[in-house]
């Protein structure tokens, strides 16, 4: 938490923008590219001002073709640059999946480490912003199932900065998932003295509690914190773990928490079946089986295509659904 005197309210969007700027200023090999990232500054304004400050060669409006964007970024990385590419919305990353799965994820391995690809792929993801179809997908399961990729996602303003800097600094490809509906979330933050998050792969305990653990990430973190507050009325003291990184997965932090509380609910917006929660629940169960008072439960988006704006509130995991799951954790046993 930025405690310096100069801390001021900042949005996650501002922190991301600042992280990109600082990375570009420090390292001339960092290049931004994507649709509308230059003159416009991105449809979410995450790259605002960067083309102006660093020139269009460093922050480039590309032709409208996601495979081409990621594919040329691969070539740029082969030549020693650190491309940061933007996929305008989650679902518009799909055309780039062949490049991602067959090259980006595998290049280090294919070349016995001779040609790692330090590419950061920014994917604004998730719903809750009233977007029409194809604008609200939570596609992290696809990335998680692909060895060779790191997958991170911030839930706080300071993590947005710290994780972005760590992602760009990583010598491996990182899928940087930006929770769209937290872009405008605010926190006091000092851009002049940002907190580093250290290497990618550590979860953060956002709230300590003794009754049960909520394991979550990205857009669902604030929802879980709210649920934890509400749970106090029911007499539950919930711990909230923000994974921050899905790959690598911080098994130690999660397992330590669950061993202590004996109960866990995984919460995410992505669909349940085949989604990240299955892996997380299975893994915790393997590690903590004899500490568990109840099966690890999951609260996730339904197993349906993302709903239209007027119905999305029914789909998104909310406080009530989380509390219902907590209630099903076999407290009588």
């Amino acid at each position, binding site marked *: 938490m930025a405690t310096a005197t100069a801390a001021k309210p900042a949005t996650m969007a501002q922190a991301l923008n600042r992280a990109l700027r600082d990375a570009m200023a420090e390292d001339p090999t960092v290049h931004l590219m994507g*649709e*509308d990232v*230059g*003159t*416009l*500054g991105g*449809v979410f304004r995450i790259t605002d001002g960067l083309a102006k400050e660093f020139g269009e060669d460093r922050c480039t*409006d*590309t*032709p*409208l*073709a*996601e*495979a*081409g964007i990621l594919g040329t970024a691969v070539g740029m990385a082969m030549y020693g640059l650190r491309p940061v590419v933007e996929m305008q919305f989650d*679902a*518009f990353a*799909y*055309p780039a999946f062949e490049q991602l799965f067959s090259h980006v994820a595998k290049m280090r391995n294919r070349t016995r480490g001779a040609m790692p690809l330090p590419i950061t792929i920014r994917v604004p993801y998730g719903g809750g912003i*009233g*977007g*029409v*179809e*194809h*604008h609200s997908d939570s596609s992290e399961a696809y990335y998680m199932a692909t060895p060779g990729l790191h997958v991170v996602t911030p839930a706080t303003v300071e993590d947005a900065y710290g994780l972005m800097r760590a992602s760009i600094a990583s010598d491996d490809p990182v899928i940087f998932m930006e929770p769209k509906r937290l872009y405008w979330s605010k926190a006091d933050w000092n851009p002049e003295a940002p907190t580093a998050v250290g290497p990618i792969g550590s979860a953060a305990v956002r709230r300590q509690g003794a009754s049960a653990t909520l394991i979550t990430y990205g857009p669902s973190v604030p929802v879980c914190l709210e649920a934890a507050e509400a749970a106090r009325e029911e007499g539950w003291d919930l711990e909230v773990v923000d994974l921050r990184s899905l790959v690598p997965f911080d098994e130690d932090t999660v397992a330590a928490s669950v061993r202590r509380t004996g109960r866990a609910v995984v919460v995410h917006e992505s669909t*349940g*079946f085949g989604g990240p929660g299955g892996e997380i629940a299975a893994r915790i169960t393997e590690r903590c089986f004899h500490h568990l008072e109840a099966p690890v439960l999951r609260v996730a988006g*339904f*197993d*349906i*295509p993302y*709903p*239209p*704006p*007027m*119905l999305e509130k*029914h*789909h998104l995991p909310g406080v*009530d*659904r989380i509390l219902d799951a907590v209630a099903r954790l076999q407290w009588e046993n």
Partner: protein
Amino acid sequence: MTVQELPGAGADYRPTPPPAWRPRIDAAPLLPDAEPHRVLGTPAADRLDPDLMRRLYAELVRGRRYNAQATALTRQGRLAVYPSTVGQEACEIAAAAVLEEQDWLFPSYRDTLAAVARGLDPVQALTLLRGDWHTGYDPRECRIAPLSTPLATQLPHAVGLAHAARLKGDDVVALAMIGDGGTSEGDFHEALNFAAVWQAPVVFLVQNNGFAISVPLAKQTAAPSLAHKAVGYGMPGRLVDGNDVAAMHEVLSEAVAKARAGGGPTLIEAVTYRMEAHTNADDATRYRTDAEVEAWRAHDPILLLERELTQRGHLDDEGIQAARDAADAMASDLRDAMNAEPVLDPMDLFTHVYAEQTGQLREQAALLRAELEAEEQ
């Protein structure tokens, strides 16, 4: 075998071109004209059909009004978002006008106007953008594919549908619409290639409105024109003034007729301009000047036709007023319809994922139903 052992070695041998190579087709007829085809304000306008032109005029006026009304609805919170086609009405109207009943339209996300001009209820056309469901109509009933948000992805669908119809012996042409930016996507390439190889009855209409959100055409392509892309697929490319509805109607009709007659696909680039921002959520001042927009005002599709028709005496003040009145009536109906709250059933979320609900969907539906019942109490 060396040359010494070859029959005829030492004679003054000249190798022939590689045996398999022959020019497959002549490239020349595929090349677009040097300038966008125009009719209005040119001698070609002499042969226009006044009735058709008056009909198109009324449609253009209605289209402009529809655009204004839809944008107004975004301000009133009745639409989540609206991508305007102000300035592009000639393309939208002509696209709808050249199709027969049995033909199919494959619109991009911007082309609700073409769907409406084809006869679709505007409320159904706007369902996606209002946000109560994705596709607001039965595509098979109106032969309009779902508005396609992922750019260029609807093009292979158009090719497949046209190909299927042709295999069945049905008289169906598919008209697929796409923007200039969308031509950079791989799906554009694959669709045009399949269409040409299969000689499918498809017409590809690219509305080059100068921008893909903020990105101008010069950053999108280095080609002489987007119509030139046709050559690489072996189909003819046509370049048209997209604000000249008479020219659009002519070129589109020719391409549709060619496709219908078994002549295969055509790529058409309509040169036009997006007069408003990308959507109501966009700020166009970030990437273009007012002067550029102003330059296009004198080339407004409605004005071009209005001038031609009034000068020729095919349209008078009364006709103009009638078109406007009809447009106003449409707008007022649309306003009323959109002001009614859409009827929503959250249980619909589970109804159309599969033909038959899976066990896990039944459970999830039960969960939501219980939640909704609890809320009601």
